[in-house]
């Protein structure tokens, strides 16, 4: 009996449930978890359904069907990483704007305090 489908099923279920649990404990925002949930569900589907796995493998010419799961996992990781890079860029932009604003406001505040003296 082939162990790979069972292992793959277990792993994708663990990913799915861990992400759900992180959301439930408010340690992960929903909007950053959607890609994870989606990826783990797709992986789960291909781990369980031998038929679709073999269909996709045959369609794109992969000799060893379980490779499809690795391929998908790899693609999802790339997509999720690019997504997070954009999130980080956005955050650092906002962070910069905030820091600049703090500097500008602090200058105004100190100037007004100076006038009061």
């Amino acid at each position, binding site marked *: 009996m082939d162990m790979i489908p069972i292992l793959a099923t277990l792993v994708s279920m663990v990913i799915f449930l861990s992400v759900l649990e992180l959301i439930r404990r408010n340690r992960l925002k929903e909007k950053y978890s959607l890609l994870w949930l989606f990826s783990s569900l797709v992986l789960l589907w291909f781990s369980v359904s031998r038929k679709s796995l073999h269909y996709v493998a045959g369609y794109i010419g992969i000799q060893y069907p379980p490779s499809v799961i690795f391929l998908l996992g790899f693609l999802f990781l790339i997509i999720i990483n690019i997504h997070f890079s954009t999130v980080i860029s956005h955050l650092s932009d906002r962070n910069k704007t905030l820091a*600049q604003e703090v500097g*500008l406001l602090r200058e105004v505040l100190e*100037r007004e305090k100076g006038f009061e003296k």
Partner: protein
Amino acid sequence: MKTLFIIPAFNEELNIRGVIEDIRGHVQGAAILVINDGSADATGNIAKDLGVTVISLPYNLGIGAAMQTGYHYAHMQGYDIAVQFDGDGQHRADQLDQLLEPLERGEADIVIGSRFLTKGMYKAEVARLVAIRMLSRIISSLVGQKITDPTSGLRAVNRRAMHLFCRCYPDDYPEPESLVLLHKAGFRIAEAPVHMEKRLLGNSSITLLRGVYYMVKVVLAVLVDMIKEVPRR
């Protein structure tokens, strides 16, 4: 015209006093703003004691974001011209007239103080000169006009360019990158001859290997800038 001198400074306690006094010595009643970019030393206090405006950033944002803070201030306070004047003592205030004239006459939106318009005035290591020359070629061809000193931090901009810089200003290598930005947004760039000192005190941390690495990164950054979206004027 209302002119503001913006001095970005990161740990420049040895130089900042000299820089401020130099500007004051040449420009009566100059408005000076020091952007204290998260310095760990006395830069901010020295500047405050000299009575100039100081904006202290909560942590080191880097030269690009620090200068942008200054442009925000200049724009908000209604200045007509903002001059970037480095805090390390390289720049000198005795040739500011030539820098400001094209802006006052409305002939340019930015004037760059160039070390290379007067022959043999600027002394530096050969490697640095070669690097600047190469960068000058690249930037010149990208912006379609000769720019002899694209890395010069001594520059003056009018209100329009200030406004563009408030909306977007490069973080990493702002001197060469901003030229590409201005060109793409349709602004007029001019150069004026200036002298510069080698760094007075403290060291500019550029070695040969670092210099090559710097060049590669700048060229990449500038090429990326060419394909970026910019707000039109």
